[in-house]
């Protein structure tokens, strides 16, 4: 194990697989019929089943929170538990929280608009407003665990989760944090789903009971994954992977960028992040085979993670790790139909 690389030591998730610590049983999921809001005909998506957060994280009160904030605290708690980190032994002002999201707290944002529609802008709810901010989930993680280090929320067209992983690792490399909890996720609401539908982006599998694998296109998903990064070397740690170099770009030549990152060395595994894959394939994207030839084992993007769009890469990574690919060099690779890419080298243990 290279000791100078941040290592991934804990995973927690709240996804359509449920709230879980560590790896998950990565059986293929099918989308479910939406019942959270009224639909005139069948509409399907990958949804998180309601659960009682306090049964997983004792003492957690979620009544006033956006589901995304509640999931963030639950997933972060599960990831810390999985890592076996004792925060009491750490300088909490050097523990960072780095959160990636596409839409932020869209549920309570919708509720705030609802209150404005009902009572006028002069009659909105003061308790709801601060919980609409995109950084509310990350700040609730800090508040619950008394984490006083950097607390950052980012969005990034197609590659939010990858950029959060890379930037959290950067904080650690530059001595600005000793440990980082990286989170990425989004909730699915009626307004978001109907935007996809009106924009004609949805897969036929959203409208019938065909298996998701038999049709192309985008099936909306929701969930949140948290990962603990810490320096290598803690004796009790059971690391999943070490994070190496990485990069992302909004455009330019994907092949050249990824090849430069690889520096002539080819990975044993490609873990496809498939962000942007929701939309149709494009000449701008390039296949993993183009980059690394025939030898690498490729873990394709899965619909349940692709449906989370720009926040989906941590779920892609979790699903790939859950298939226990074995040890070796891996490349987490995301490409976008709009151009651009994100690539991160990993050493799997």
């Amino acid at each position: 194990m290279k000791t100078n690389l941040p290592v991934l030591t804990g995973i927690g998730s709240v996804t359509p697989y449920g709230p879980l610590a560590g790896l998950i049983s990565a059986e293929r999921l099918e989308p479910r019929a939406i019942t959270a809001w009224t639909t005139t005909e069948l509409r399907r998506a990958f949804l998180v089943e309601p659960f009682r957060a306090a049964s997983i994280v004792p003492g957690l009160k979620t009544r006033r929170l956006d589901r995304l904030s509640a999931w963030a605290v639950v997933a972060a708690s599960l990831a810390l538990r999985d890592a076996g980190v004792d925060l009491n032994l750490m300088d909490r002002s050097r523990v960072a929280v780095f959160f990636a999201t596409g839409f932020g707290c869209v549920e309570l944002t919708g509720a705030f608009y609802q209150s404005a529609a009902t009572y006028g802008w002069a009659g909105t709810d003061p308790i709801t407003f601060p919980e609409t901010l995109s950084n509310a989930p990350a700040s609730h993680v800090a508040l619950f665990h008394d984490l006083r280090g950097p607390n950052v929320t980012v969005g990034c067209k197609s590659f939010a989760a990858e950029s959060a992983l890379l930037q959290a690792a950067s904080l650690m490399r530059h001595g600005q944090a000793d440990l980082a909890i990286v989170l990425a996720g989004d909730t699915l609401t009626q307004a978001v789903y109907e935007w996809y539908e009106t924009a004609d982006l949805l897969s036929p599998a959203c409208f019938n009971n065909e298996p998701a694998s038999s049709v192309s296109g985008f099936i909306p998903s929701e969930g949140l994954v948290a990962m603990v990064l810490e320096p290598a070397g803690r004796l009790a740690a059971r690391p999943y992977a070490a994070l190496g170099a990485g990069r992302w770009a909004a455009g330019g030549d994907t092949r050249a960028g990824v090849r430069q990152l690889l520096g002539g060395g080819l990975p044993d595994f490609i873990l496809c992040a498939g962000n942007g894959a929701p939309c149709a394939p494009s000449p701008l994207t390039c296949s993993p085979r183009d980059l690394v030839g025939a030898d690498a084992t490729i873990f394709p993007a899965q619909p349940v993670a692709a449906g989370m769009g720009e926040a989906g890469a941590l779920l892609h990574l979790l699903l790939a790790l859950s298939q226990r690919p074995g040890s070796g060099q891996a490349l987490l690779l995301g490409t976008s139909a709009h151009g651009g890419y994100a690539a991160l080298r990993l050493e799997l243990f």
Partner: protein
Amino acid sequence: MIDAQKTIVVTGIGVVSPYGIGLSRLQAGMLAGQCCLSPVTELYPGFQGTVAQVDALTPLHDADRYSRSDRLAIMAASDAVADFAGYSRDLRESGIVMASTVAGLTEIDPEISRGAAEWYRHGGLLRAATYPVSRVAASVGECLDIQGPSCAVSVACASGATALVLAANMLLDEAASMVLAGGSDALCPFTLSGFNSLQALDSEACRPFDQNRNGLNLGEGAAVLVLETLDHARRRDAEILAVLRGWAMTNDAYHPTAPQKDGLGLATCIQRAIEMAECSIDEVGYVNAHGTGTPLNDIAETHAYERAFHGRSRPIPVSSTKSYFGHCLGAAGSLEAAITIMAMRAGVLVPTLRLTDPIESSQVDWLRGEPRRQPLPVAMSVSAGFGGSNVALVFGGYRA
């Protein structure tokens, strides 16, 4: 001996403020003591308050595709790189880190909650597409044809300063050779209503750090700084406006909206930024404060300065420039960084307006009255926000 590959410098500043486009307009207005805050009533039915607005936006091709926050960001970024002659590969491969808290909320109205699908079919589809905060950064990239790493930041009112920190780290990582970093936020009923519901707004022009302060005013604007390594700036013979000598981020982990009363989290942040800048507390000649004008923020911030600058040989000069054009939310940190650099280069410390009865502190030198002219080799900009985030930036001058 400085390491030119690890030294982050500022080589461009673009500003859109209620004073107009450009740092020179902002500087002229502020040094003249001109306040842009004015009473308004038309922002939504029932609203009576004081805000600062940007008068006119630059015409833009396909303007419907962009939110008002996007357009302010595009204008500021264009201003920041206005001196780049013709096509530049450097610019094309640059990174972008743009902060916003409002983003496309400016384009969405409450009617969406009565039936989203219907609202989308009647013209809302394109408007709603501007909602994700990432759109602000992506819009700058589209309009300036920049293809490097792009990222948006949303850390409430500390967003703009956070963007500068992330950009500096990207440069240290060699993720890009230059990064355009800053923040942009437009006024909109959503945020006005939200802050009004919290009773955080002063209906008159705000009075930061005054004992009779009564809340904040909202403003709008954008600022974008061009950051690069000293090594890269020298190679392209760029004018160096300032050195970003140190930075730090912390979180209070105290309350969703209220700052930590004793200012401990912010003081730790300030101390870490000074440590990184490798300067003493006596060398910092000015702090551009967060200074919103709310009762809770300003007293907590004062306690933070008393802690962080304890032992200093003379009181630390502090002012809040939100007294000129309000709180621009996600843009505030980058606008205030631009003002801090402006103060250093002009050798002028700008006072807080309407500060007649300041919070009592023997360790803070509250700047008020006339601008104070003095050399300013090192200065600091401080930001804080809902969710407890704090950011401190230390800037220094550059001598070749």
